[in-house]
């Protein structure tokens, strides 16, 4: 069994993993402080015959310290997270020349519409593949998603991508693969009986391979 | 002394604490939860309307604004008669109390009747909450939100009218005195609240 996160294959995944690590350091430090203090006090101040507790009601300065220090740490985490988040999610920060794909989710399948050889959606050479997500490496992909029935969630663990797909609404994500290979597409939102098998495969090709694949598939569908 | 009488503290008895007797404080607390209930429904209405502006028509095209404006006036009047009833018993005027309470019951019932007639008319024009039967202008969401908001208010008025009838019945039995009339007071609180909610609902459902 492998510990930690699955291998990261997207351009921004490393940044997400590093924020995870940052939070891990901060909380681990806090964890050690709290648990060590707890255990130390329990041993040091355990009841002894004839001992009496000290009659103290509080300490103003201590209250200020343990309000301000967590505040600063959390402000740091919030600041760091906001930067990455808006960079990823703001519509105006989406990459320009991305490959456009469309996904229509329904119980319990992912229908991916590819632009075909001409590289544009809504043209006659478009074609649809069920549960197969193919993309080129090193090129941003932008997916526009809709749902037929209930809420699903488009989950690419190795890309650090998750986005709910909501009926009556369009949602978008983008990502960019850093290496070729086979990866996993899953559904992360409970969507009914078949939620557990609503999965697909993700194949990352080289740019040329992807072109070839698109041409071949478009020909096969027409 | 019966146990619940002691513990529920009869009206008019001030406890340590807020300087308000339990029943009145309890009514205030309860009304806070009612405020949240209507806040939730109104919030839902606002979200839906912003998300689907086309589902709603201009004010006055589907709903009958003049009729409801008149009905709103009726409900406001009933708040005035409620105040009169309370003022009467504060002054020890039993006859005034009974008369004004009856007037309030009557106005409340009148409001409900007008609303019933309005519902009937709207429904016959295809303005219904059920999506598959909707046949009026706008979209089914309009009907669903309209009936939910006004319907829950109407249910509150109905409960109010029933309780108010009971209060009146007790008033005729002489249950309230100048010194002890908490029942009238908390009835009034509820009634004014329901009235206030209506003014808000009328504004956002009919006028905007």
């Amino acid at each position: 069994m492998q510990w930690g996160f699955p291998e990261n294959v997207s351009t921004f995944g490393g940044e997400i993993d590093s924020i995870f690590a940052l939070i891990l350091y901060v909380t681990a430090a806090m964890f050690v402080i709290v648990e060590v203090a707890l255990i130390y006090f329990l041993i040091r101040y355990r009841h002894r015959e004839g001992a009496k507790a000290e009659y103290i009601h509080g300490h103003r300065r201590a209250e200020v310290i343990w309000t301000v220090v967590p505040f600063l740490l959390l402000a740091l985490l919030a600041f760091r997270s906001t930067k990455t988040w808006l960079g990823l999610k703001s519509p105006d920060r989406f990459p320009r020349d991305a490959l456009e794909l469309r996904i229509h989710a329904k119980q319990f399948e992912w229908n991916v519409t590819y632009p075909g050889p001409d590289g544009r959606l809504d043209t006659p050479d478009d074609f649809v593949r069920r549960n197969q997500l193919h993309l080129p490496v090193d090129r941003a992909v932008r997916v526009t998603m809709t749902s037929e029935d209930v809420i699903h969630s488009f989950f690419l663990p190795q890309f650090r991508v998750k986005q709910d797909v909501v009926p009556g609404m369009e949602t978008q994500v983008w990502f960019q693969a850093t290496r070729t290979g086979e990866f996993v597409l899953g559904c992360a939102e409970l969507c009914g009986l078949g939620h557990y098998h609503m999965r697909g495969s993700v194949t990352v090709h080289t740019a040329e391979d992807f072109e070839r694949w698109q041409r071949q598939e478009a020909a096969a569908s027409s | 002394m019966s146990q619940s009488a002691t513990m529920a503290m009869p009206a008019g008895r001030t406890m340590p604490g807020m300087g308000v007797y339990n029943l009145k404080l309890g009514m205030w607390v309860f009304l806070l939860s009612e405020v949240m209930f209507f806040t939730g429904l109104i919030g839902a209405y606002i979200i839906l309307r912003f998300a689907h502006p086309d589902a709603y028509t201009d004010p006055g095209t589907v709903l009958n604004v003049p009729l409801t404006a008149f009905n709103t006036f009726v409900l406001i009047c009933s708040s005035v008669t409620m105040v009169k009833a309370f003022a009467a018993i504060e002054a020890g005027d039993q006859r005034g109390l009974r008369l004004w309470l009856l007037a309030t019951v009557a106005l409340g019932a009148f409001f409900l009747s007008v609303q019933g007639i309005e519902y009937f008319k709207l429904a016959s024009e295809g303005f219904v909450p059920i999506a598959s039967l909707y046949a009026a202008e706008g979209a089914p969401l309009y009907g669903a939100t309209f009936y939910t908001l006004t319907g829950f208010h109407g249910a509150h008025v109905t409960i109010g009218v029933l309780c108010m009838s009971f209060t009146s019945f007790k008033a005729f039995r002489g249950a309230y005195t100048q010194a002890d009339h908490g029942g009238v007071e908390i009835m009034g609180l509820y009634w004014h609240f329901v009235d206030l909610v209506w003014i808000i609902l009328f504004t956002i459902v009919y006028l905007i």
Partner: protein
Amino acid sequence: MTTVAAVQHTAHALHHDDRSFIRKYIFSTDHKIIGIQFLFMSLLFLIIGGLLAMLIRWQLGWPGQPLPGGAALGETRMPGGVMLPEFYNSLVTMHGTLMIFFAIMPLLVGVFANYLIPLQVGAPDMAFPRLNMLSFWTAVPAGLLMVAGFFVAGGHAGAGWTSYPPLSAVPEYSGVYNGQVFWTLSIIILGFSSLMGSVNYITTVINMRAPGMTWFRLPLPTWALFITSILILLAIPILTGALILLLFDQVLGTGFYLPERGGQPLLWQHLFWFFGHPEVYILILPAFGFVSEIISNGARKPLFGYHAMVIAIASIAFLGWIVWGHHMFQSGMNPMLGATFMSTTMVIAIPTAVKVFNWLGTLWRGDIHFHAPMLYAIGFVAMFVIGGFSGVFLASTPVDIFLHDTYFVVAHIHYVLFGGSLFAIFGAITYWFPKMFGRMMNETVGKIHFALTFIFFNLTFFPMHQLGDAGMMRRIYDYTGYAHLAGLRPLNEFISVSAYLLFATQLLFAGNFLWSLLRGKKAEPNPWRANSLEWAAPSPPPHGNFAETPTVYRGPYEYSAPDADEDYLPQDRPPVQRPAPAPEPIPAGG
């Protein structure tokens, strides 16, 4: 004056308690009996919720294997002992629902707000005893309805405890018919029960305090329950409203949440979480109160930073209203809004930090007695912080992209709700058991139960963080079909075995509870040498509670005061006459 009324009243009650059996134990208006009724009901639901979890763990530990004897559950659930996905979905939904709405919430509030508030403020009963009785008897049909849902055709609700529409509203999508309607109705009814309760608790705390019981002399459980009641009062109506709209969508054919009928699925999520986040604090604030009480008692030391503790609870309660969006980061909500919700969510960790450090401060230089309730309270502090820390990961929007709807969230839930709330409940039951039943629970069994629970709890739930990191989705019936999850079989098996040991350990608690009820050592009025008013009444207190309305002279945590002879100083003990004039008791009304 109340004092007079109350004295007359109690005297009356003490001398001739001639109520019939039914009035005394079944349709009782006595807050103590009602609290105990809630206790039995919610423990029953705790057991049922636990059993459902055992079934869940079977499927996850040994996916697709027939459960020995499982076929007894029927063809529509486990044909041949192999679980069906639809039954799995119902199990998860009902496990979450029963635990949150029917076990933990009534345990914390229904039981202890009822039992403790009048005793701790020095009142003979609640402000509205009959309303209180009605509150319990409204919860019962809600519970029956919820259980009945298991037996309707189509199976029980299966859309998760969060019941997101369209799945929860359209039978064609979920395959669940009346089960989902039963679920909705039951929670609506339960909401009325909670509302009646909170109107009572709030009025009682404000109006029925004994002379001298100023606001800042209230024990922390009462403070926490008071603030929790305000949260309930304001949050439940939002849920009720949302549920009514859901019910209309389910049965009337409206379309509030259904795009095909012109509605908005995200509306439900906003309404549900606007209620739901305050709800999770409803599930922890009372626990904070109990733990504060027990730690101060066990350490024989005044609670560190009493005012800071009260302010922290109030701030958490307030901030809890503006963080709901953190459950919806990946829902398609505007990313700017997401960033805002992240900031408010991070801020809420600060008052929580204040609480944690003040508990540590209370232990510092104390004289720590490790009685069983104290162990649970210490376990609470140690475990709750882990749940809090995992919350910080989830609060970070970019990290939540990956962790949302994975087992990391499941780990978070159980660290805060089991490591937090349930540990505090174990502590509170053990601590107030002598007051409730006049007998002590067995200390040794309590300590063994604590130790084993502590171990197996961590063995069960800590590895779930790793499942989440590996990308295992929650609410998933069979993960073995996923390439990246197939390797998680052994870890899941380990978790399941630990979960069974954890459940088995709970039998110790159940046994101790039942045995002590009948055979436990007789309790004195004040076995823990504690200060608050409930210990001034006999164990168990009679109908009407106090022989004489107590007068309060000081705060509730005056342990180890230098000029007192013992290491505790009850709130109602009159000050000893010293050369200097004794301070006047502060009249009620502060």
